[in-house]
């Protein structure tokens, strides 16, 4: 006696294909989540539109203003203060006094209402980053903010993710430079990795993060302790 088999030969092939397809999709989805949600994708490149099209490229890059001219508190305080309107007007009362772009600034100066800047480098609230603690140790602005002196509009370059912070907190040496060069964003670009490390190691010793023989000290381990950034 005969019967109909439930499945035909070709179905086996089909099922194999379906299986393979499912596997591929699975991998694809995983990769998407893996990279799609990475801070490198979500955060890096964030460039909100500011009320005033202030160009760092012009002021810092070309006119050569020092970062600290505006961000005065960066060496003394946790926040690198956004300059008060006064600071802008110091020059712009004379320079470009009629520019349309500068209207928000002038009106702020008239009314006393602040300019509403949009925060670009925006860390989560449970992270306590202190500018002075980094700048006075020889971590340059460029390490986190990139070549702001080349930016027409400021945007986020680094992911500012925890993993990214740890990179440096685990091995600061290559990221350090003499304190007086901190705001010189272009400084030492030509150095080789090895030079960076050597130079950094010296600074590390100065900071007591390395002992004389160049081995990390306890203060170094402290830098990866939770309470260093989270309270």
């Amino acid at each position: 006696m005969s019967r109909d088999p439930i499945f035909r030969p070709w179905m086996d092939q089909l099922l194999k294909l379906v299986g393979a397809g499912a596997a591929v999709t699975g991998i694809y989805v995983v990769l998407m989540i893996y990279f799609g949600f990475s801070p490198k994708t979500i955060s890096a490149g964030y460039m909100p539109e500011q009320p005033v099209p202030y160009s760092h490229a012009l002021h810092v890059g070309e006119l050569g203003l020092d970062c600290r001219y505006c961000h005065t508190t960066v060496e003394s305080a946790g926040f690198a203060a956004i300059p008060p309107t006064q600071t802008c007007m110091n020059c712009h009362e004379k320079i470009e006094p009629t520019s349309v772009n500068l209207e928000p600034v002038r009106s702020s100066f008239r009314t006393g209402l602040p300019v509403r800047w949009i925060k670009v480098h925006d860390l989560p609230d449970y992270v306590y980053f202190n500018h002075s603690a980094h700048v006075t140790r020889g971590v340059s602005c460029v390490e986190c903010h990139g070549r702001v002196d080349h930016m027409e509009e400021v945007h986020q370059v680094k992911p500012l993710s925890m993993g990214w912070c740890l990179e440096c907190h685990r091995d600061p040496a290559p990221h350090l430079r003499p304190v007086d060069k901190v705001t010189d964003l272009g400084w030492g670009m030509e150095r080789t990795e090895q030079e960076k490390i050597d130079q950094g190691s010296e600074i590390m010793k100065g900071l007591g993060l390395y002992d004389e023989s160049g081995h990390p000290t306890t203060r170094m381990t402290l830098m990866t302790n939770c309470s260093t950034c989270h309270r």
Partner: protein
Amino acid sequence: MKQLLDKLSPIMRPELTGNAESPEIDNTAYLPDARQPLVTGENDNTTITDKVCQIVEQKPTVGWWMFFLLSLSVLGLLGVFIPFLIFWGVGTWGVNNPAGWGYAIVNFVFWVGIGHAGTLISAILFLFRQKWRTSINRAAEAMTIFAVICAGMFPGIHVGRAWFAYWMFPIPNQMELWPNFRSPLLWDVFAVGTYFTVSLLFWYMGMIPDLATLRDRAKHSVRKVAYGLLSLGWTGSNRHWHVYERAYLLLAALATPLVLSVHSVVSFDFAVSQVAGWHTTIFPPYFVAGAIFSGFAMVMTLLVPARQLFGLKDVITLKHLENMNKIIMLTGMLVGYAYAQEFFIAWYGGVKVEKFAFINRAFGQYAWAYWIMVSCNVLSPQIFWFKKMRTNITVMFIVSIFVNIGMWFERFVITVTSLANDYTPSAWDYYSPKLADVTILIGAFGLFFTLFALFCRFLPFIAMTEVRGVMAEKARLKSPPPQQGASDSASEDSAAGS
């Protein structure tokens, strides 16, 4: 009980062909020169296959629907209260400071415990060549899976921020943080996860040939396809059987230490901590014994009605039930010994705080729970000393219920009493559950029974293949062999036993 079931049977049971209405046959008597059959009545491959398959093939009966819908509605409680819990926070539970753990953990341990009998019956009894397992292992394994599902639910919802529970898995992430492998909770994640996966494989693999049977009997095309897919194109080829049996043996060999490890690890949640009353080296064996104890009790609770309702009296025979009762009594006494031992050590160890912890258990603010536990777990199984009792359906059913209750309270006593009065008296408090605790406790049973109902309905309730194997021997053993031959034949038959 029995009478009640008999009355119910007509509506509950599908119209079975063959000798479904078989009477209760006592195959528990000891025969000096032969072995009691493991399958009673006039059964052969054909009838067995029919009996088992009909459960699945018949239209669902009123009884099944009643049972299923009831379980489903109870399951609804979970549907309501878990979102409620996630939305408002674990404060909707009764947990507080100092009792940071309450029903959730109690239920977790309880269900994991239940989940032990299945794999134990399948794996350990398999390795020990206990052929009487064949009739009950399928249902027991199913029970395991469902129990572990219930258990697995709790750690997930008991944490304060369930949406971050995945941090317990070592997944690469932007924080470059990893879980803390020193934490018993993490061991739990791996142990229970592994246990669930392996039990699932073990269960499914055992079912493949039976699914093939269902496939070949299937009339309805959907069923044809479904069972066709599930049975992976099994043809009963002996070359396949050869690999299959080896694989099954190895899985059993792996599952056995696994079973023991899982509840040991669960017990570490308590033993590794330093709360007086938790910090005890006796916990791993004690918990394992308890788990087997409660597991068998739950199997009993499920099988006694099932064999009646599905007309499987002569497959799941009195002998099976009696054996299980023996194990329940044994493990019950093991647990009792552990209780006693805890007190002895507390006294002998001379740590005042621990001494207090145990005296407080028995006579403190939670004494009531303690004595419920003792009477259910230690006293009630003692009745099985009498053969009359351990072969009495009603009695064994009631006892099994008692044991379930008792074992839930064991976990309650361990978890709550130790926390509520620990080191600093100023923090002492009384833990009492809130509505959400109770509803989720009940809801978990809803989940369990719903799954079990579906299992009875759609999957082979008995491992037919294995029963056939057992009967093959029965056929061969028709003529009583020489005395010592019994044991030989036992050993040599064994391979076919699965």
